[in-house]
């Protein structure tokens, strides 16, 4: 496989929710080391697209390929190294932070206990703690806290740490910083840049356009379920991006 092959590719994806068409004719290629930002108004279809990219939502037509292989299920996508931070975080509130980070991929004990199917919670707690420490965020120290007792920001940190821990090929983030304070936002953005520099493909949805422009390499603008523009982030301003999102320029050009 050559260096220029896409890590993640979306081919001709469409999605209908009953009568509502959420996406039509979407094609995207994401490459290793690249940070792509998905931009669009509320309801443009960003979350729908990202849920399809990670295998959580089957497209009505079209396909998603990871390193050239079509993904068949969420589980398959996870095994191919796609990590995802969902807009609703997808955390189980009655489980601890560590239990959530290892949910569905628990570590078993060794020896007899492992044969009985017992889990190594001490090791999972330790690894979860390390992963969060690695993120550099100090607001979430105790991974044995049940998620229901955490603040919105702490929950977001848990979801980000989980996605980081499991992503090997691509990291997808749907508004990962919405509940964070400015300092944590900066740390998360820094982590995203580091991850991309290590060769991961990153796709980000965020409403905070200045920070998107600061870290993204490429912008993909969605409007009513279609990609209307794909362009390098360099040289763009908040005003130019917003007008593309709401479609002022196009309408003016069409008139």
């Amino acid at each position, binding site marked *: 496989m050559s260096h220029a092959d896409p890590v993640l590719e979306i081919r001709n994806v469409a999605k209908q929710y009953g009568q509502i068409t959420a996406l039509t004719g979407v094609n995207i290629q994401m490459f290793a080391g690249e940070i792509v930002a998905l931009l669009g108004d509320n309801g443009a279809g960003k979350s729908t697209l990202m849920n399809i990219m990670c295998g*959580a939502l089957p497209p009505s037509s079209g396909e998603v390929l990871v390193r050239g292989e079509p993904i068949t299920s*969420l*589980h398959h996508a996870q095994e191919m190294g796609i990590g995802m931070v*969902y807009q609703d975080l997808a955390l*189980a509130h009655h489980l601890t932070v560590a239990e959530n980070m290892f*949910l569905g991929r628990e570590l078993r004990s060794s020896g007899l206990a492992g044969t*009985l199917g017992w889990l190594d919670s001490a090791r999972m707690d330790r690894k979860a703690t390390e992963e969060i420490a690695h993120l550099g965020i100090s607001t979430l120290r105790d991974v044995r806290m049940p998620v*229901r007792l955490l603040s919105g920001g702490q929950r977001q940190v848990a979801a980000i740490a989980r996605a980081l821990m499991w992503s090997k090929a691509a990291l997808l983030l749907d508004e990962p910083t919405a509940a964070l304070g400015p300092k944590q936002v900066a740390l998360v953005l820094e982590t995203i840049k580091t991850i991309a520099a290590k060769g991961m493909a990153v796709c980000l949805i965020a409403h905070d356009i200045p920070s998107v422009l600061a870290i993204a390499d490429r912008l993909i603008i969605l409007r009513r379920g279609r990609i209307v523009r794909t362009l390098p982030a360099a040289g763009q301003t908040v005003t130019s991006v917003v007008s593309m999102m709401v479609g002022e320029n196009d309408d003016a050009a069409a008139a």
Partner: protein
Amino acid sequence: MDRFRHPLLGGNTLWVLGLDVLLVIIFQLASANGAFLNPINVQAILTTYSQVMMLVIAQTMLLGAAQIDLSQGATAVLASVVAGTVLVSMSAGGDPGPHITLPVLFLVTIVVGLLAGVINGVLVGWLRINSLVATLGTLGIYLGTAQVITNGENLYGVPLSIQSAFGSVYLWRVPLSTLLAAVVVAVVWIQFRRGSFGTHTIAIGSSEKAAIRNGIDTRWHMVKLYSVAGALCGIAGAFDLARFTTTDIGGHGNDALAAISGAVIGGTSLFGGKVYFFGALLGALLALILQSGLVILRFPPFYQVIAIGFILILAVAIDSFRNRNEMR
């Protein structure tokens, strides 16, 4: 592991334990000649309790995944009817002896319970029918099937060796069925806490969508969960048949609701995610203590139902008050 979810004492476990002890003391002091703690009475309570234990831990696990099983009593009855029929047909030429009848009893009841559970699990997990509705339907189906098998009568002529070698046997003055039930509880509890089965159950009860998005096959998990629960009901059916050597088709109508009440009194939430096995076991014991105590004090036994109703509402009120404080 969640240090906020104490493995033994979480939920309402402590105050329900206190209530159990208090009631035992009251009944003991109030009964003539201390009749309440008379070994025969205690043994009778424990023998009934062995069945209740099976149903209440099954219901507690299900509630952990925000599921409910109304067909528990019907499953136990169906299991005992099928096992009883098999045993009757096997003993046409005389009782073949406990080394044959007991393995058959447990094998058949567990398999029937398991199958009933699989059906519940498929209805809920794959066909996505609400568990309250699905198990209300199967309650009728399982109970009706039991009645079809026996023509609506209770079964007689079951080989007595299941009673003489198990149902009426005591070890250190404790009924054998109670000891066996305690072992089953211990195994289920340890597996639930230490294996991924419990974590996945609680994840589903917290948010089914979150569980799915973490790669948990919730349909398959539901089938597993309901089949374990069904097998436990099957064991309760075996205890019932071994105790009386006859089926009790009409006597299990309240079993599922009693198990749900016990679990909820112990602090297990109806909305999923909160599982307290020991609270549930003590909550279910409360009903038996009340029933026996009221009978001994010559109160009509239906006062027990009223008392449990009050305690149930009190328990839920305390729990929702706690939740409100926790929301911050």
